[in-house]
């Protein structure tokens, strides 16, 4: 018989927030680059930014906001001991991550088809400001997409722990912290969508 390890729910949550702060600072670096180069090349940013598809960006915004709602509701349902509902909400979150990536696949495919991808020969003919815009676009949305993929794996795992009752009403720190991570992914997109897809 093994005794369960003592757990410190607040300590775990504090650690998660510290990790999220490093994530915020990581993405802020990319947003600062965006701001500096937007100030330097406003015309080039405008002409390149208008090539991005608003519908793709808008649909992915809805997908992420809704999946954030699912995770937030899952923290309530697990505390209320509604196991089945929690499983459905977590499955919904993982499914949303899949939809987001499928959307991203079509969006990037369309860009690649037009010869816009990192280090593309045609890209080097464009004005420098546009090259910088596309570089930042691929770096920022790529890093964000990687976070969505990690989130997908994470929520499949959390879904499994809820099913096997390793995570339950008395011990749901894993679900709560995974939720915090997912909300951060949503937060980053809340800034990416208007800055890259809308205002230019």
């Amino acid at each position, binding site marked *: 018989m093994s005794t369960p390890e003592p757990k410190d*729910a*607040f300590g775990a*949550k*504090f650690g998660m*927030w*510290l990790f999220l*702060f490093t994530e*915020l*600072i990581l993405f*802020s670096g990319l947003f*600062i680059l965006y*701001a*500096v180069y*937007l*100030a330097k090349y406003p015309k080039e940013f405008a002409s390149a930014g208008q090539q991005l598809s*608003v519908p793709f960006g*808008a649909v992915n*915004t*809805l997908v992420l*906001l*809704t999946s*954030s*709602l699912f*995770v*937030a*509701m899952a*923290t*309530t349902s697990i*505390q*209320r001991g509604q196991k089945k509902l929690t499983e459905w909400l977590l499955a919904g979150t993982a499914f949303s991550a899949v939809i987001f990536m499928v959307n991203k696949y079509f969006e990037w495919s369309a860009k690649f088809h037009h010869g816009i991808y990192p280090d593309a020969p045609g890209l080097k003919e464009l004005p420098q400001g546009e090259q910088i815009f596309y570089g930042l676009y691929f770096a920022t949305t790529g890093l964000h997409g990687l976070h969505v993929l990690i989130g997908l794996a994470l929520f499949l795992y959390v879904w499994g722990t809820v099913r096997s009752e390793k995570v339950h009403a008395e011990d749901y720190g894993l679900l*709560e912290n995974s*939720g*915090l991570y997912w*909300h*951060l992914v*949503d*937060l980053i997109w*809340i*800034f990416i*969508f*208007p*800055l890259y897809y*809308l*205002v230019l």
Partner: protein
Amino acid sequence: MSTEETHKIVPYRTFITVWIGLLALTVITVLASWIDLGALNVWLALAIASVKCSLVIAWFMHLKYENRFLKLIFLITLITLAVFIGLTFVDVLYR
């Protein structure tokens, strides 16, 4: 350190209300981008995104219900970011 707030169960209704607010703000930010306001478009988009972020952080991320310590370290992060952004622009704008 009190962990009492940590265990507050937020009703579904609250989360759904926040979600509706976030969707409404998304529609507003798309509509606002169709009006040509010059440089103001960027600032307006940033303002709306900040409101959306506050909603997500306060309710979805539960920060509203957390203790003062977590709120304080969040504030310190925001100040750190503001210093990064501020100092960068002091350099970039006055070169």
